[in-house]
């Protein structure tokens, strides 16, 4: 197992601090339309360093901060913490468990942490550089995007193969 748990607070529809425990093998994530399942996929991409707002279904990065409901005020910060198991030594860090956290304030400030130590975004992204995680390796298949695997231009498909090489 690689993903151990995720904690979301103020990220998109997760206004309250929420935690999901992952398991090995196949986990099915279910719930009604609009309840937040794909938002969890966005949260995982985001905490791993995703900067393309379109890829998070947002126009500006600020859009990922909980923006309120009829009964609740908007929040001022979005935070996602992902805890990863490193038994296989997949990550270039000498520890069996690693947590990565990302915060975005409505002011525009951002914070990034590896094991509670503040780091730069670049360091966070480099942590996963060689692991094969990330959109180009088919490891995250977004909703509605399965057909693009085939409709991709032959040149784009090449990039995915290069990643696998």
């Amino acid at each position, binding site marked *: 197992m690689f993903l151990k748990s995720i904690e979301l607070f103020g990220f998109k529809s997760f206004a309250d601090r929420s935690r999901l425990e992952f398991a090995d093998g196949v*986990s099915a994530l279910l719930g*009604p339309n609009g309840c937040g399942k794909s938002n969890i996929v966005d949260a995982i991409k985001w905490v791993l360093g995703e900067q393309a707002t379109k890829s998070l279904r947002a126009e500006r990065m600020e859009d990922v901060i909980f923006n309120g409901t009829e009964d609740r005020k908007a929040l001022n910060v979005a935070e996602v913490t992902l805890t990863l198991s490193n038994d296989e030594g997949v990550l270039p860090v000498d520890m069996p468990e690693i947590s990565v956290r990302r915060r975005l304030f409505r002011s525009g400030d951002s914070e990034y942490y590896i094991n509670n130590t503040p780091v730069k975004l670049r360091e966070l992204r480099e942590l996963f550089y060689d692991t094969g995680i990330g959109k180009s390796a088919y490891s995250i298949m977004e909703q509605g995007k399965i*057909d693009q695997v085939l409709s991709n231009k032959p040149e784009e498909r090449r990039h995915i193969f290069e990643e696998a*090489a």
Partner: protein
Amino acid sequence: SAELFMNTFEKIKRNFHSMFRRLFGGGRAELRLSDPEDVLASGIDILAQPPGKKLENIALLSGGERSLTAVALLFATYMVKPSPFCLLDEIDAALDENNVGRFVSMLTEFGRQSQFIIITHNKKTVASASTLLGVTMEESGVSKAVAIRLDRNAPNTE
């Protein structure tokens, strides 16, 4: 390097053909370099032939056939370079019940060696998973993670 790329390409190509045959119960699938003269820059074309049919432009395939072909390529690539986890968001949406069954048996097999998280509305896919994670919105607009009690005999698993 050209050699490393071709090596990887050939492996994925072999896997793609065998994954396709497993998911479709026959037929064949190929990957071809658009420009075999230029290995370092060539694009990659996909050809797929469901059992009994003729090899043709993948645009003519049905929605469900395209999904299944994409799944074959996904798993084919995965066999060559397994990522530490795999996140699949409703990739079974276009499949009929028969094909969901074939997809699910392949997913279960891969799940023995790797971590897969699949978002789905399909009951067959849900029933095949070893763990269920739930999200609800009891309060409008506010997501909440919930534990799901596994009552696999209940008619309503939604």
